[in-house]
């Protein structure tokens, strides 16, 4: 598709030809994830997280459809249908529910790695701006889906999560409160809210899947980026997706499924909150109410605003939280450096790692109980988050002198030394030590 040397699909059988002339679906798959999609040959393991995200979306949809066969979306029955019926009575229900619960966390883990990969290697830059923006749309949809899914068991955290998150909307002047009541279908979360959350929680994953298709489509126009950020120049720079990256992605999927299985089987509730095993009580809020871990950084930004300044503090918090994600849509135009990869940008690289630390601090503050120290820490970290994207990044990209880029991907991979690329046992002796070590 993207490069002139991409191999066209050639059906091998008469049936394949017959099918291809009528519905070229195998042709589409061959060009997208088969031998017809040339991929830079120097991708590192960070490039496996996109496929891993697709894997977890699939796991979530399959386990979710199955759980919906047993779940009751009723304020009387929801808690018991999850904790009694599914966890105890349904065959393998405990496994499916824990797989779905932790699948959500792992979906976010791999997506966060995927996003930070994009931030470090400049994946948002031309010509991949739309790939980046569609990814952000997926991320927003994931957040909405995860939030509504967390409400469904109708435990204490479900209920108060629904109360707090829909409360965001009441911060807006004039329309806020009517909007909140309209969203909930009542004055507090109740049957109407639960039923519509279930309906939307079932719908949105399929919307995500549709946007994933657009995301991949947009990616395949310029082709995948790579760790050097240098454009593909000729056939020597690429390998066909199949069998090279299907094998690598397959192997990596096995690794990540192993970690997922470890958590699902041995620490299934580690990433959750015990209060959600208490049935929802509209008259008593839990002492320490927190969202799921993947929302902690944003929760910290929300809580950073403690004094009214022109606008009420509550509105500032909500606006800051929403803009912390919305500003990422403008990232391709905030970072104007023509060099994509952070590996060749010494100043940018330092600030990138500072941002990672900053987001981890925000996550810690968002998940921990409120204290004067943590509030101050959260305020500083929230301020730095915006400073990074709105001030530091534009200045760095204007002033920084990048390191010299390799002239091509194959040059950066091979360093002109055939010996390094040769497999075990066939190494031509070079300096001695390396060749011997690999032969042993």
């Amino acid at each position, binding site marked *: 598709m993207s490069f002139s040397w991409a191999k066209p699909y050639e059906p091998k059988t008469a049936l394949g030809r017959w099918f291809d002339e009528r519905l070229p679906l195998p042709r589409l798959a061959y060009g997208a994830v088969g031998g017809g999609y040339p991929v830079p040959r120097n991708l590192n393991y960070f490039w496996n997280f996109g496929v891993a995200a697709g894997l977890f979306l699939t796991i979530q949809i*399959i386990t979710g459809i*199955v759980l919906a*066969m*047993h779940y009751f979306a009723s304020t009387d029955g929801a808690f018991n249908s999850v904790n*009694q*019926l599914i966890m*105890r*009575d*349904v*065959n*393998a*229900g405990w*496994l*499916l529910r824990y797989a779905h619960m932790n699948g959500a966390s792992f979906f976010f883990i791999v997506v966060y790695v995927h996003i930070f990969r994009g931030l470090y290697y400049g994946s948002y830059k031309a010509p991949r701006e739309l790939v980046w923006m569609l990814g952000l749309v997926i991320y927003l949809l994931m957040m909405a889906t995860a939030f509504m899914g967390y409400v469904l068991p109708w435990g204490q955290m479900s209920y108060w999560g629904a109360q707090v998150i829909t409360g965001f909307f009441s911060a807006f002047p004039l329309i806020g409160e009517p909007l909140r009541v309209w969203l909930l279908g009542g004055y507090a979360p109740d049957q109407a809210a639960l039923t519509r959350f279930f309906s939307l929680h079932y719908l949105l994953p399929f919307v995500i899947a549709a946007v994933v298709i657009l995301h991949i489509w947009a990616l395949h126009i310029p082709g995948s980026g790579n760790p050097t950020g240098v454009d593909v120049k000729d056939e020597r720079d690429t390998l066909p997706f199949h*069998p090279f990256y299907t094998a690598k992605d*397959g*192997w990596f999927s*096995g690794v990540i499924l192993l970690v997922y299985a470890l958590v699902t089987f041995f620490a299934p509730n580690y990433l959750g909150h015990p209060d959600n095993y208490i049935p929802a009580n509209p008259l008593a809020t839990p002492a320490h109410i927190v969202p799921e871990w993947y929302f902690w950084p944003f929760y910290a930004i929300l809580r950073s605003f403690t004094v009214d300044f022109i606008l009420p503090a509550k509105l500032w918090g909500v606006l800051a939280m929403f803009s912390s994600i919305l500003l990422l849509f403008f990232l391709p135009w905030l970072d104007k450096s023509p060099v994509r990869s952070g590996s060749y940008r010494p100043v940018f690289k330092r600030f990138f790692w500072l941002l990672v630390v900053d987001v981890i601090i925000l996550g810690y503050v968002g998940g921990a109980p409120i204290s004067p120290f943590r509030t101050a820490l959260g305020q500083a970290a929230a301020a730095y988050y915006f400073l990074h994207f709105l001030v530091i990044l534009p200045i760095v990209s204007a002033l920084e002198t990048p390191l010299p880029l390799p002239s091509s991907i194959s040059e950066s991979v091979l360093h002109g030394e055939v010996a390094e690329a*040769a*497999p075990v*046992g*066939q190494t031509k002796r070079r300096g001695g030590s390396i060749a011997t070590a690999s032969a042993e």
Partner: protein
Amino acid sequence: MATKAQSAEVSSTTGTEGSDGYRRRDFLNVAAVSFAGVGTVAAIAPLLVQMAPSADVLALATTEVDISKIQPGQGIKAQWRKQPIFIRNLTPKEIAEANAVPLSSLRDPQSLAERTKPGKQNWLITLGVCTHLGCVPLGIGEGENRGPYGGYFCPCHGSAYDTAARIRQGPAPLNLQVPEYKFTGPTTVQIG
């Protein structure tokens, strides 16, 4: 999968070929993909067994019924596994009618004695589910149509059962099913 032709471009650098023409890599590929295949099949198992009756459904597998108030000629409908159960106290005339039928003339040959407990031949306990397509036949309630053979009559497709609930006429292939049950006291029966 890993054939020589497909991976020809790497074959020159991936080690030795055995005398049978297969390379180590061919074996590794088959082994790796098979391992993933076995794992995937194992992962499908919970997705299938979750559809089978859950523990709370199986917990309803037995039910006790009080039959002290059923006079001869009367019957009641009870519920067992969410299915109707017909419990009927046959009159001596109905018993005689059932016993008078030659077994060879029946579609599903069974005597009344085979369908009841010894000494309790007047207690006819069957599922109220027509063996044709699962409708509930008429005839257990007072004044309902009992059909031409005085037992039960299915309104859906016209199957008629006799006083031992055996199929006599219509499309149903089998007699009304007798569930497992036992008398736990003089006036109580446990079904299932």
